[in-house]
């Protein structure tokens, strides 16, 4: 599969994200990087769609940022300080991908949220580094972006790093 970018419409965003995740994560150990919603919310929806979320490893970049530092992560999740802790997100993603055996998938939800918290140049270099690293490690990746952000220069540059752009 390699690296796939999905441009998702904002009106039915979450529903579509769950569909993509269910489809792309078949036969893999999925690592879900969430910058939008707390992992508890995603787990709940996945369960409603007949998926076993306890098989998914979450890198939750929003809960600590909104709730505070006193939350304890469950076994299948780790918290990163916030969506602007871009280096920590990169370290967590590459370490998790390195540590797991078998086929794995890094699912990034989403570049659009990352752009809300970080300078576009920083997001550009982060994606360049992370996607190149994942490719070298033979790890598949799905990167989500809002359709409305497709015209942004940084998203166009990220698109050039992907094998496929889907809508």
């Amino acid at each position, binding site marked *: 599969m390699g690296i796939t970018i999905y441009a998702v419409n904002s009106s039915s965003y979450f529903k579509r994200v769950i569909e993509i995740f269910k489809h792309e994560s078949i036969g893999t*150990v999925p*690592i879900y990087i969430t910058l939008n919603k707390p992992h508890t919310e995603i787990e709940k929806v996945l369960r409603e769609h007949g998926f076993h979320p*306890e*098989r998914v*490893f979450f*890198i939750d970049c929003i809960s600590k940022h909104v709730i505070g530092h006193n939350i304890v*992560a469950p*076994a*299948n*999740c*780790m918290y*990163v*300080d916030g969506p*602007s802790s*871009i*280096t*920590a997100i990169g*370290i*967590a*993603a590459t*370490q*998790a991908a*390195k*540590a*797991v*055996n078998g086929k794995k998938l890094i699912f990034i939800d989403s570049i659009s949220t990352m752009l809300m918290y*970080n*300078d576009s140049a*920083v997001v550009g*270099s982060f994606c360049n580094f992370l996607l190149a690293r994942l490719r070298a490690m033979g790890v598949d990746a799905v990167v989500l972006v809002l359709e409305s952000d497709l015209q942004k220069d940084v998203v166009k540059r990220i698109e050039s790093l992907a094998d496929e752009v889907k809508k």
Partner: protein
Amino acid sequence: MNVDQNASLLLVAVAIQIVAAYFSFAIFRFNRISTNWLALTWGIMSIALGTIITVLAEYETVPGYTKELLFTGQIVLPILASLLMAFGLWGMKKNFEYFEVVEKEATTKIRTLEIMVNSKDKKRKK
């Protein structure tokens, strides 16, 4: 060395300090890991300012304030610069410690999860 030569050398030092401050700011702009890092940039700028004030004092450019200028350039600003640089580097140290924690947590947790999922799968097959 006479006063002119000393002043010229100090101005060269100021130029190097400004370049160093620029590099420090460029590092911040490149990764924006921590805003604490900016304290280092301000620290280097304070050293440069201290050097300039010292040169001005030695040339007695503000008559009657030479002692005060020397005190500011040689004592106050170097202390401020030291504090700022220590604070900036402490912030970066904290960040690197956090990165190490993240690295270990990611590795440990996903390995544990993998073991749990595999044992559940084995039980199901049985």
